[in-house]
């Protein structure tokens, strides 16, 4: 399980890439990946290309990110979901809260 | 012929024991005499082996290297069950004990 974050190419957003299992054990690292980044990102992208598994605590963490990013006003994208991850996000209807690609 | 005693070991031992060094030497000698009796009177191979082994260990601890070696020979003979050579080995042990005893006492009083 590895979490990396870096500024987006245009410098205004933050991209967080998650590798391995996105579950309860990722909690601390995930928060740290967006909490002290030295600038105020205007949008966030969560890249799940290398994520193998997502559970309900991951959903909770995404909600925390969204809350940090401004709640209803937040712009949070979730990209590169594989079929399993997609399924979990669909059942929870998270596309009502996130831009999922 | 090599020295009967390991000086380096004894130097360290005397330093460790301090004032009790002389007591240690006498204890060893008393123990050793008992072991010699056991060895001489042993009628069963197993008993002989054990006593020879014990004396070997104690001798090694006191730096009496030649005595320890002689005990080792006797111990091997007892383990293998060989009869031949046993009287000679036993005599050797007794001889080396006497030498070691005297050398240790001299060392202790030096």
């Amino acid at each position: 399980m590895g979490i990396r974050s870096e500024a987006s190419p245009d410098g205004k957003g933050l991209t967080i890439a998650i590798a391995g299992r996105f579950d309860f054990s990722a909690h601390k690292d995930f928060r740290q990946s967006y909490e002290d980044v030295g600038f105020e990102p205007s949008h966030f992208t969560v890249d799940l290309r290398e994520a193998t598994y997502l559970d309900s605590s991951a959903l909770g963490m995404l909600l925390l990110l969204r809350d940090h990013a401004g709640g209803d006003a937040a712009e949070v994208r979730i990209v590169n979901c594989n079929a399993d991850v997609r399924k979990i996000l669909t059942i929870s209807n998270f596309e009502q809260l996130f831009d999922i690609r | 012929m090599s020295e009967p005693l390991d000086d380096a070991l004894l130097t360290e031992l005397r330093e460790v024991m301090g004032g009790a060094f002389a007591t240690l030497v006498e204890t060893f000698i008393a123990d050793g005499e008992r072991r010699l009796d056991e060895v001489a009177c042993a009628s069963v191979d197993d008993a002989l082996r054990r006593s020879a082994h014990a004396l070997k260990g104690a001798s090694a601890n006191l730096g009496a290297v030649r005595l320890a070696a002689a005990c080792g020979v006797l111990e091997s003979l007892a383990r293998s069950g060989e009869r031949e050579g046993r009287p000679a080995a036993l005599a050797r042990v007794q001889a080396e004990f006497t030498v070691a005893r005297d050398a240790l006492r001299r060392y202790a009083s030096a």
Partner: protein
Amino acid sequence: MTATIRVLVADDSQTDRLLLSSIVAREGHEVVTAVDGVDALEKFTACNPQLVLLDALMPGLDGFEVARRIKDLAREDFVPIIFLTSLTEADELARCLVAGGDDFLSKPYNTVILRAKIIALERMRQMHATLQLQRDEIALHHARLVREQEAAKSIFDSVAHSGCLDADNIRHLISPLAIFNGDVLLAARNPSGNMYVLLGDFTGHGLTASIGAMPLAEIFYGMTQKGFLIGDILRECNRKLNEILPVGYFCCATAVDFNFWKRTVEVWNGGLPDAYVLRGDGRLGAVRSRHLPLGVVGPARFDATVETYELEHGDRILMCTDGVVESRDEQGGMFGAERLSALLARTSAEHAFEVVREAVLSHAGESAREDDLTLVEIAMCDEQEVGAPASRNETSSALGPLDWSMTYELGPVSMRAFNPLPLLQHVLMEVPSLRSRGGEIFTVLSELYSNALDHGVLRLESTQKSSASGFAAFYADRGRALEHLDGGFVRFEITSRANERTGELRIRVIDSGVGFDHVAAREGGPSDPRRLHGRGMRLLDRLCDQVTYFGRGNDVEALFRWSRPS
């Protein structure tokens, strides 16, 4: 520098004992000596040393046996044993370690080495002792946690109780401890006899999960009893959970409202796996999760839209939490939603519950635990089969308000957003003698109001509801009509007259709509379509003592008569 410890020196050679004691004492430690195996064990028991120097070859009880017994005596404590040996063969030395020795020291004894070994083994001993303390502390905390959970569970049980889960038309599987996995199953009858069932799965485990379930259960049971619609209950549950749960915590849920009179079920699925509609004729329908779980968004964004299905007698709704779908076999393969729906497609409705249960348990194999499965099935049946809802039968000698009247009128803004029925029901139930007929009264109030609003004010055609897809269309039309409503009214005029012995309650509902041809409808036979759908004339006739239509049909009065036993 190691702290002072007590060392047991066991050797049958006096020379060796003296030598070792001196070396050990020189390091500042306390020494106890033993001359043979038996003595060693006695001294060990009496003096509790922290380290044992043990001669491997002693007469009588040999060193290896002594080592084994010392380890036994030490039980969970770690007391290191250093074998003293002049054995040189590798396998003999290895034997020392196998027998329970932690190290060995060869003759001639090297002081430096012995000192180092004492320090190293003492370090290990202290680490072991620390681990034991931590383990004991953990065990203590764990025991406390278990007690707290038991207390939480008993509080939860008294709030949640099982409602009507034991009704004849419900089959369910849920562990009594499921609450600590976040699973909750609530079931209750509302005053008009509808059966509401809520299946919930909270994120988190242990107390985090069970805490959220308490307000959920209170709201569900309280509002059901007062006659609120399932959508209102879900809205309030969502509002409460959104308010009290920290961000990131939520409750996936499926709720159903079974109406035994109309043979319909309304379903709301927010975040749980598909619920299934199992029909007696073999057809299978899936009710997907279309909503965010409860507690995620605030009231403004919450969507209480339900899906409505018409069910025949014997048709069922099957719901489960993800414990079923995610149940794994020994290789880690999931049971999966596809397997579940394939299984249901080829199983008859009445056997589905058992078949699913068996299939999931056998899939999980050796590690199968029924405790992890939460599964519930509700069957459509006649109300007689499940009995009337228990009414509040308070026989109080107080007469309560006997002669009173009230007028309550709703304008368009109120009609769009507010359900007046629980409030009106509450007022009516203040009359003790009416309580035993609470169910009928509520059903009549509901029927009169929905006629007045849907068919009167909103001018919706009731015939739409006769087909399965018709429901969706009907409710869509209704939603649009409500949104565009800018005029109209529904007025309740309720009168109660009574003395100590008899009384009558009149509920008159007038709406601003065009009415309907009630005369013709009355004259038409029981199978006249105007009697069967919309306006619920048949139902009203059955439940009230008298129903009267006035004017152009937008004015209806239901009469209840009652008498008190002397």
